[in-house]
Structures are given as structure tokens and as C-alpha cells.
């Protein structure tokens, strides 16, 4: 049995990678994918701790997260599409009409 700490490390690594992606990539789709990675990091934690504590709470919650992640992507893609329609691009740094 692998100690739960390693899963924590793994999830932290993935969370950070996702965060890194969000901070560095300008394409909205990368942004979406990076968020998915981060949410998965949370899921890994939940499942791992659920296994450790022996209750299903974490697993159930990870399901919710999965479902909501899917919904979020759906909404997100809708927004990306209208962004593309209005700005002709999916570069998130291009949309800067509102600032200051």
C-alpha cells in the first residue's frame, strides 16, 4: 500500500502543473485543460484520503467534482466560442477592452 502522502505529493504536483499552465498559456483552450488538471489533482486527494479514512465521502465528492468539471468545460467552451466570434481569436490576452 502506498502511503497517502505520496498521493498528496502527486496531486500537489499536478495542481502546480495545472496552475503553471494557466499562468503561462494564452490560449483559452489550454486554460480549460489546465483547470481540468487542477480539478483532477483535487480528485486524487479526495480518493486517496477516502481510501485512507475508509469512508466514501471523498469518493462521492470527487464524483461531484468530475461532473461539475464537465459542466464547467461545457460553459467554458461556449464562452470560448463567442470569444472567438467577437475577437477572432482564442487568445485570452487579446480581450482587453475593459481595464483599469
Amino acid at each position, binding site marked *: 500500500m502506498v502511503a*497517502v502522502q505520496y498521493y*498528496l505529493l502527486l*496531486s500537489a504536483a499536478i*495542481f502546480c502543473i*495545472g*496552475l503553471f499552465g*494557466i499562468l503561462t498559456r494564452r490560449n*483559452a483552450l489550454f*486554460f*480549460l485543460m489546465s*483547470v481540468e488538471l*487542477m*480539478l483532477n*489533482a*483535487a*480528485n486524487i*486527494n*479526495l480518493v*486517496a*484520503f*477516502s481510501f*485512507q*479514512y475508509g*469512508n*466514501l*465521502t*471523498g469518493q*462521492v*465528492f470527487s464524483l*461531484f*467534482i468530475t461532473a*461539475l468539471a464537465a*459542466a*464547467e468545460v461545457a*460553459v*467554458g467552451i*461556449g*464562452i*470560448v466560442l*463567442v*470569444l472567438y*466570434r*467577437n*475577437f477572432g481569436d482564442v487568445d*485570452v490576452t487579446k*480581450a*482587453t*477592452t*475593459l*481595464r*483599469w
Partner: protein
Amino acid sequence: MAGLTLPVLQTAPPISDWVAVAPVLLLGLTALALFVVDSIDPDSSNSAALAGTAAAGTLLALVATLLLLAGGVGQGQGGALRLYGGQLIIDGMALFFTVIFTSVATLVIVASYDYLRDRVYQAEYYMLMLLAATGMALMAAAGSLATVFVSLELASLPSYALVAFMKDNRGSVEAGLKYFLIGALSSAIFAYGISLVYGVTGQLGLEAIAQQLSGGTQLVGVLGVGVLMVAGGFAFKTASVPFHFWAPEAYEGAPAPVSAFLSSASKAAGFVVAFRVFAVAFSPEAVAQSVDWTLAFWLLAAVTMTVGNFAAATQDKVKRMLAYSSVGHAGYVLIGLAALGGGQDGLVLGASMLHLLVYGFMNTGAFLFVALAEYWEVGRTFEDYNGLGQQAPIACVAMSVFMLSLAGIPVGGGFMSKYFILIGAVGTGHFVLAALLLVNSALSLYYYSRVLRALWVEDSDGSVAIEGYPLGLYAAVVGAAIVTFLLLPGVFLASDVATAAASALFA
């Protein structure tokens, strides 16, 4: 929650579960009803019927909530109703905030009737709004981190769509994008924070977490990171620094009624859930030995109100100024969290709740006035508002009430609530926060008075000709103004409920 066996569960609620969650159900069902209507007749542009239905739904929910409040449901020390295994908690605070959400939603829907005239997808608009309201009502009642997360997303996802509702308007789309991106990032952080808290406690139920934490924990660091990440999630929802970046953009770009809805109701929702999570799950007594999150909120409050007000001070556009002021007000309310554990918990939290209630009306009203201005197409900057006071005196009197009340001048309830917060800060010895509040109030008075100046003092350049006085917008603006004003002498109607509900959390 299999692992959760609390004694309170054995006491059968005095009323049926359905009755207790009636407001939430009413909101949700109205949304579904609109969905049905829309699918039967997708091209309907009968906005009166749509808005009427939506408004009826929120009004019913409001009435139901008020009845529940009046009936004392879930109130008093230890009187909270725990439904569905403690996943939902109906108590004074939940109902109090449901009043805010439903009132704001009603105002916004009534105002949207005029604002949306001649636009397509009206049914979807109302439906999304109702769904978001449902999510908020659920947030107020959330009893575990799982319901917190789900309801928060339920409130957020429709909001993203609402902000980007005018899909041919670049501002609206950009606002939606930014809101969504920051929201997604924040919800990821939030989820990760929840997972860490779960990792430390093995529980998601708020009271269960509190029980677990009161025994102390070895994983202080993990818990701390988790708690702060959870706080980050709330900070996003409440537009607190540094999670506030979306707010100015989203409020500015979104249709004004949506801005009103988000800046009032959505913010309140973020706060109610933060209050509940931090007061119950991470209650100061439980985490006294491990994570001093009041310090974090102290910093957040200080930075949030300062950034919000300072940035608002030099804005050119009224809507954006209101957006930043909304950030500033989040900072005021955060004092309620920062001052917890100072021996005045019921008082300070009650003051924050009261402020959110008043804010729900005065800020909504202010944004709806902006909606009115957008309806008249007078422009967005302060200069564009010059001389409006002569052309539309009633609406401008209402706007003046909002501005003064926001600034904490006694023509509205904002005076009372702001000073109650200040009392809380002083009473718990947070003199630095009190001083910051002072500085920021001064600054806020400056920029709010710029609106008054534009409306009443400056002369119009003559280019603005107001056509028509839209009934719905007027009704909403004037209604909000009347309530804002009445909350000054009538503040006792709300303040006792708020302090009692807040105190009940610390029973």
C-alpha cells in the same frame, strides 16, 4: 454522510422538510417552468409573461422565506433544522440570506423586463437567473463542504452565462470570459482546498469537521493551506482581493441588471457560505491551536477595502466605479470574519449580515439606475450623467439615496450597517481596521459624491434627451430606494434577526 451521527438528527423537525426548503424549491421550480415554457414556444417574445413568471417565482420564494422567518423556523440557539443528513441547514442565517437573494432577484427581474425588451433568449435569461438564485439559496443552507461546492458551482455557472449574455457585445463577452477563467481557477483552488481539509479531517460535514478539529491535528500545515484555499474560493465569490480581478470587468461588461445581481446577491452568497464554513467548521475555538485564519481575513479585509476604494476613486465610468466600490464593500463585510473570536461574534457577524442585506438593496438599486441610464443610452461616464437630476428627478433621488447610503450617510440603512461594522471592529480591538475603514470611507464619500454632483450639480450639455420612463426599471429602482431608506429607521426589523442568527452559529 454515513459517518455523521449527530444527536440533533434524532429530533424530528417540527415541519416537513419540503416546507423548510420551500424557497429553494420555488426558485428551482420556476426556473424549470420557464424552461418548459421556452421549449414549448422557443421564439416567444412575450417578455411580460416571462418576466412576470420569474418575478412571481422569486416573490413567492421571498414571501415563503419571510413566513418561515416570521414563524421562527430554524431560529434560536440550537434550533437549526438539519435536513438530508445535515447536508442542508435551515436556520436564521440561511433564511436571512434567502431574503436577500430573493429580493435582489425580484428587483433585478422586474428591471430586466425593460432592459431586455427586444432581445432574444429572454426565457433563458430568466431561467439562468433563477438557477443562480437557487444556487445561492442552497449556498446559504449548505451544511457540508460538498453542498457548498456544488451549490457554489450552481450559482456560478449560470452567472458566467449571464455575464456573457449579450453575445454580440464585445464587452459582455470579454467580461464573461474573464469571469469564467478566474472562476474556473478559483473553483479549482477551492476544490483542492476542500480536498486538503478532507485529508486532515476525513469529514466534509461542517459540524463534523469542527468536531474533528476541536481535538487538534498534527497536519497543521496541510490544514492551513486547505483552509486558506477554501477561503480563496469564497474570496472569488465575494470579489475580495486578490480574487477580485474579475469583478470590475465582469460588472462593467455585463448587462447592468446582471451586474446588480452578481454584485449584490452573488457576493452575499459568497459571504453566507464563508460565514457558515468559517464560523462552524473552522470555528475559532476549534482551530485556535492550529490555523489562525482570522489573521488572513484581517489582511484580506484591509487590502480589499483599500484596493476597492482607492481604485474606485479615480474611475471615469459610473458602472466601473460601482464595481470597485463593490470590492470595497466586500472589504467592510470581511471585517465581520476578521473580528470573529474577539468576544463579540454575534455582534460583528450580525453587523456584516446586516450590511449585506442593506447592500443588497442599495447596490442593486445603484446598478439598476445604471441599467436605466443604459436604457436611455446617456453614456457611461460621470460626465454623461450630468444634469440627469432635472430630467428624471425621481430616479435620481433614488440614486442619491443609494449613493449616500453606500457612503454611510444616514439617508439609508447603509449608515446603520456600516457603523455597526465599525462598532464591531472597535469592540474587538481592531483599531487598525477601524482606521482603515475611516480612510476608505472618506475616499468613498468622495467618489460617491461625484455621482451626486453629476446628477444634480452639473448642467447637462443638452445632448441627452430622455425618452420614456420604463415602468419596470423605475419600479425596481424606486422600490430599492424605498427599502434602503426604510432600513434606516426600520433597521431593528432586520438587525435583531441578523444578530440572533449570527449568535446562533456560535451556540
